[in-house]
């Protein structure tokens, strides 16, 4: 579905990403885990060409991204970021309808789709005419997810989408994400620095450090891994995870 072939990215002589090889399969949630500056966000942005690689190739559906029309490519990929990036001068409904609108859908179809999406992400229909600043952080992020899903893209890129939320809201949204993903089976690339989030949401975890892919493991294997970086992560989150396990 998405493939990175020996991808490097350098900016001002600094190696942000070095020789990345990675394959994301259809319907999985691949989590890119790593600390700030590890290159995980860059990896994400390479997929929808917000960033172009210095060398190497990225393939989406078997096609090299630099050879596809960038506008077409992006409209087929949902994108959710931590700061949400909702248009402050658009209502919730218009924000969600963004891609369908520029794709020229009929009014009727757009309206039906917006209603459907509001329901899908658990927002009441009465919010449709509000503006983003009238919503809570959790509601805004839900609108962000709905907007990304609007044109039913196969791929969803999510860059720490729940990072700025309070723990309870984050927990809600993570649970809803899992339920949603069970229904929709999107191919998701999910960036986070939170191991707990990675273990909970990911079907596989790609651990990144200093621009390199350190290891690629399932959540179960990640906990048992002897890889120094992976075990360092597990240790750092250890207390919380142990408490987690006891509780469940």
């Amino acid at each position: 579905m998405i493939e990175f072939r020996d991808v490097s990215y350098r900016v001002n002589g600094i190696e942000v990403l070095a020789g990345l090889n990675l394959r994301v399969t259809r319907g999985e949630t691949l989590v890119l885990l790593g600390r700030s500056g590890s290159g995980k966000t860059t990896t994400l942005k390479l997929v929808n060409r917000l960033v172009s690689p210095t060398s190497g190739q990225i393939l989406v559906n078997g096609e090299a991204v630099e050879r596809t029309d960038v506008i077409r490519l992006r409209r087929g990929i949902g994108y959710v970021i931590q700061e949400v990036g909702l248009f402050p001068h658009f209502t919730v409904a218009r924000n969600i309808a963004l891609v369908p609108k520029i794709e020229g859908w009929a009014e009727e179809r757009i309206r039906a789709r917006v209603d459907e999406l509001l329901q899908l992400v658990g927002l009441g229909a009465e919010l449709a005419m509000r503006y983003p600043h009238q919503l809570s952080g959790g509601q805004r992020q839900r609108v962000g997810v709905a907007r990304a899903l609007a044109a039913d893209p196969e791929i969803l890129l999510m860059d720490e989408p729940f990072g700025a939320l309070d723990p309870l809201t984050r927990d809600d949204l993570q649970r809803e994400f899992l339920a949603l993903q069970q229904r929709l089976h999107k191919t998701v690339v999910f960036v986070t620095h939170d191991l707990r989030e990675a273990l909970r949401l990911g079907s596989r975890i790609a651990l990144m450090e200093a621009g390199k892919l350190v290891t690629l493991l399932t959540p179960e294997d990640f906990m048992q891994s002897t890889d120094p970086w992976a075990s360092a992560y597990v240790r750092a989150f250890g207390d919380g995870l142990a408490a987690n396990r006891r509780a469940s």
Partner: protein
Amino acid sequence: MNVVRFFMENQGFELTGEHLWLVGWSTLFAMLIGIPLGILIAHRRQVNKPVLALANIVQTIPSLALFGFLLPMPWLGERADRLAILALTLYALLPIIRNTYAGIRGVDAAVIEAGRAMGMTGSQLLFQVEVPLALSVILSGIRIAIVVSVGLATIAAAVGAGGLGEFIFRGLAMVDNRVILAGAIPSAILALLADFGVGWVERRLKPR
């Protein structure tokens, strides 16, 4: 009341009309040049310094001197109002360019990135996101430009372009304060009205 009567009896309204003519055209030209230029330099960072510097330099030329410099120009010198409109346009450019630039640059980067990532084209992003969100800042630049132009346009009378400056210069020559006031008061009123008018539009269009 003497001032009012003097104003009425000496084609005051006609001069006000001329004044508005000068301010209107120069503001229009400054907007047509300044807004696209402001957008351009907001997108191409390499050129923002030279453009803003140039507009700044123009601003520092004393207005009376600028009118004088332009006087010998071939096509311009033929008609004083052309010359005055050009000079006023040059002065109005800086606030418009600078505010357009600041307004566009001030749009939340996350919003722009989201728009790009959704597959919006450059012009969709510009007209649906950047300009609407920068609009109130751009309008306040236009407001400053108009208010400054209304005042500066009084100098245009020095090169024979008419306007309310006629009264002011005549009053200065006659050492008669009433005549000066017959030009200065309507000019101040125009500036206030323009300030209020554009401010009203600005508030109406404000996002959120």
